[in-house]
């Protein structure tokens, strides 16, 4: 049995302050709604979200934008996912992974509705956009009762559906620092077979910045193989300051798989996920490497 929300409990504040006040007022019974593509189906499925009786719609807060500021690229939290694909700002080498992730996300219809902020705040371990953003060393700007502050994305995810946001806090913006044009990037998503639209079984994003074959910077982000999306730092560490070769990439891939802690669920077993984490990291690094040479 499920019920739709009553309209009386749906709020569309005009200012950030109103939004924060509403969140504080209703506490645990309130949640932000952006595109609604996570929160509404979850609510429909019953118990888990039955306690949420107030929805705070943030679409009037002017958070739908992609802009450059001080050499950084900034994405407003309620920017929908298709906007990333069409934005010229991301049509260069370092952001290919972000575009690939956006295109691998759901379907065209859902992407017109689903937001980048929603994808991060939902904090699903298999969220697609989280991975290229982690690999790009993004940080997020948060508004709350005590004003704005910035959190490194790397420390933003705390567990499945759990973030560093405190009561009354709202995600405002995602900031991507500047990256050298020669940075190679890629995103790979493994789905169940015969399916083109599905949550990931494993997803991976990598970044490589090279000087010749000397690796200046390596980033490896993994999804669906732990309680949160995360950066495999040990694996990336063995690439840094080294001369890249196939063997080293394979070692890094194995190490990344070691850093993962997947579980068995209805999509795949932990064992398969771990094995695929290595395969995907290897394939993704090879792709990033190739792209960094272009």
């Amino acid at each position, binding site marked *: *049995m*499920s*019920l739709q929300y009553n309209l009386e409990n749906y709020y569309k504040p005009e200012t950030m302050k109103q939004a924060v006040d509403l969140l504080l007022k209703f506490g645990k019974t309130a949640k932000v709604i952006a595109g609604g593509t996570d929160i509404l*189906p979850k609510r429909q*499925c*019953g118990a888990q979200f039955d306690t949420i009786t107030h929805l705070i719609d943030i679409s009037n807060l002017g958070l739908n934008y992609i802009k450059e500021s001080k050499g950084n690229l900034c994405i407003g939290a309620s920017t929908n996912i298709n906007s990333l694909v069409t934005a010229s700002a991301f049509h260069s080498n370092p952001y290919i992974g972000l575009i690939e992730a956006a295109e691998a996300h759901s*379907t065209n219809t859902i992407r017109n509705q689903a937001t980048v902020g929603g994808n991060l705040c939902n904090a699903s371990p298999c969220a697609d956009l989280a991975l290229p953003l982690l690999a790009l060393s993004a940080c997020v700007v948060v508004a709350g009762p005590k004003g704005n502050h910035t959190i490194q994305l790397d420390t933003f995810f705390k567990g499945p559906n759990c973030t560093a946001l405190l009561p009354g806090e709202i995600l405002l913006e995602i900031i991507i620092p500047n990256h050298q044009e020669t940075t190679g990037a890629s995103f790979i998503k*493994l789905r*169940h*077979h*015969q*399916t*083109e*639209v*599905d*949550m990931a*079984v494993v997803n991976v994003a990598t970044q490589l910045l090279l000087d010749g074959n000397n690796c200046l910077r390596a980033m490896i982000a993994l999804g669906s193989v732990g309680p949160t999306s995360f950066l495999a730092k040990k694996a990336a560490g063995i690439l840094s300051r080294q001369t890249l070769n196939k063997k080293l990439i394979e070692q890094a891939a194995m190490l990344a798989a070691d850093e993962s802690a997947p579980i068995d*669920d*209805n*999509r*795949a*077993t932990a*064992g*398969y996920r771990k*094995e*695929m984490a290595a*395969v995907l990291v290897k394939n993704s690094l090879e792709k990033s490497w190739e792209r960094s040479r272009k």
Partner: protein
Amino acid sequence: MTDSYTAVGKSFQRIDGIDKVTGAAKYATDLRFENMLYAGLLRSPHAHAKVTCINTSAAEKLPGVKAVATIFDVPKVVQYWFFLRTEKKKEQMFLHDNIVRFIGDPVLAIAATSKEMLKKALSLVTVEYELLKSIQDPHTALTETKVNIHKKGNIAFKVNKEFGNVHEGFKAADIIVENTYHTSKQKHASLEPIGTCVASFQSNGKLTVYSSTQLPHWSQHYLAMALGLSLNKVRVIKPFTGGAFGGRCGVIHGLEVMCSYLSRQTLQPVKMSFTREEDFSATESRHPMTIRMKTGATKEGMITANKVEILSDTGGYGTHYIGVIADCMSTGIGLYNIPNYSFSGTVVYTNKSPCGALRGYGNPQMNFAQESQIDIIARKIGMDPMALKLKNYRREGEMDPVLNELILSNGLKECLEKGARSCGWEEKRLRQAGNDLIKKGIGLSIMLHGTGAARALPDPGSATIMINSDGTANLHTAAADEGQGNRTVLAQIASEILGIEFDNISVSETDTDITPLDCGTHGSRQAYCGGLSVRNAAMDARQKMLNHAQKYLKVEANQLIIKNGHIIEKSNPDNNISIKDLMQKIQIQDMGVCEQVIGSASGIAPAMPGYYGAVFAEVEVNTQTGRVKVIKLTSAYDVGKAINPDMVRGQIVGGGVMGIGFALTEGLQLKDGHILNPNFTDYRILRSCDIPEIEPIIVESNEPTGPFGAKGIGEGSMVNVASAISNAICHATGVRLTELSITPEQILQSIKNSR
């Protein structure tokens, strides 16, 4: 009959197409009535328990709560209409006890004035349970003697059949292949969730139930029995339905009977709608089976023996479990002429959601095992699998030993030849896989499925046709159309025989107060059985029209034919009268007559003809991830005669999609009786972008007993898809998968094991 048909063999648009795309068609969920109450179920959180006490007093105090019905008041329907055959068997159709047998088993229902009130009321009910040990594994059910899920124990049914002597058959074999196969708990996943009805008791004691059932008349019978009513006091109306696939093959556990009880208390219409989650977790699914099969063949490719042992898991209740296991037997034995065959089937109860009918019945499970075995043999003896099949299949003119019926039409050879040519079988099957990361393969599988159930079940069919005074006609049939389009096909048959234009024939709604007794829609039967009823009713009406025409045309009826809406003297075409003029005369203008032409027919089909098919599946397997991609299905089916070719193609493509799902993506996953994937995020049916090219090929073998030569197609088109895909995976990688649904992980593991 002429060979140049005017309506048969033409792809008319479906008669309800426009209503459906414009939203004018009303489905059960759309129904609203004055004073209607909303009902919902409280379901058991336990897999196996005795309900000792139900306290509804707090709920009943709520102002909007109008009625409560519990497991103590309402019987469950636990058999199918096979059990209507004798008075003694009828008693076994119902079970009335206080045991819940799976997580989600209904404990009680409440009817309230609003959905909000209903939700609140359900939350106020308290139920006390005495927990019983639950059995999840069918093998445990077989051996466990201390826990009995039903009074008679955990074994629901056993069947054994033996032809020839398998022992001798294996002695004569050069190779013997033995494997155990497992198949999944597939769900129908129809677009419209299973489980919506409105029951409305009137003060005159008449019950009307709107339900998207496949079996309006049997539902009427079940309801009459459950409520102690006579049949004239129970009316079942089937609104438009968004797909059924066997999931509505009876009344739904906890639905129609519950609602009728609630409505009897209130004399108000009561509506209940299951959510998708309830559909997935508490309505019937396909029987998962463990199939052990030992097959012997000579090196020349003659199959000498097959020994089959099946353990079928029907869950907490079973309705169709006898039919389903019998179907494994009849389709398995029927397809090939294997001289020595031993079949033993056991059905057990477990504390899981119940199983029932699903497109193909027991055939897809059996076919997966048997067609895998045949493929293995072909590989072992180095023979083209197609040649092996052609050597052993049961041909036209042979006896079907299970149905005890002569095979009058079998277009399998043509299916194989046309399919093979179209997909390039010869060349592709000889292609070597090579060392690429992605390996290509092609696989073949064939099938036989019965049309209707004339040899197995009470399977009546009826139709009436009324010719109107303007020469148009109304066809009344309860051949429930679940979306496959049989009302359109039946109108085409009537049109052909009556010589009345297709557009001038209206087909009634399905309503037991109006439409004559029909078994309903199951067993791929409606083009054939429904078609025969309509054909016979139309012939009856036609004869009556000719008889009337004698008077006006002054010639004997046997000298008359009907063409283009006119009744014509064969040897003198100028002597004719239009149907319209004749009907005007006899119904109204000629006051000495004043008679409407009404044609009718009722009875069981003369046979249960097999229809056949061959599927060629082409796949790519990624050996790094184990992912399979089906590139193309070439699916050739012998349907006897395609009354409406587009509709047949629709069935072939739809079956292909469902078959790929059965092979690769679908299946309920359970943990301790909980269903882990009761939604479309986690239960993957193919999305439109996941569907590969499916090339439907129609073969017409002309079944002599069928209307215009037609037989079935509805189920068969999914039956042999999974086996064809599995055979293709083996062709690509060399590994044999024995468990459905096939996962990337299984493939990867098998590849590793084979190294």
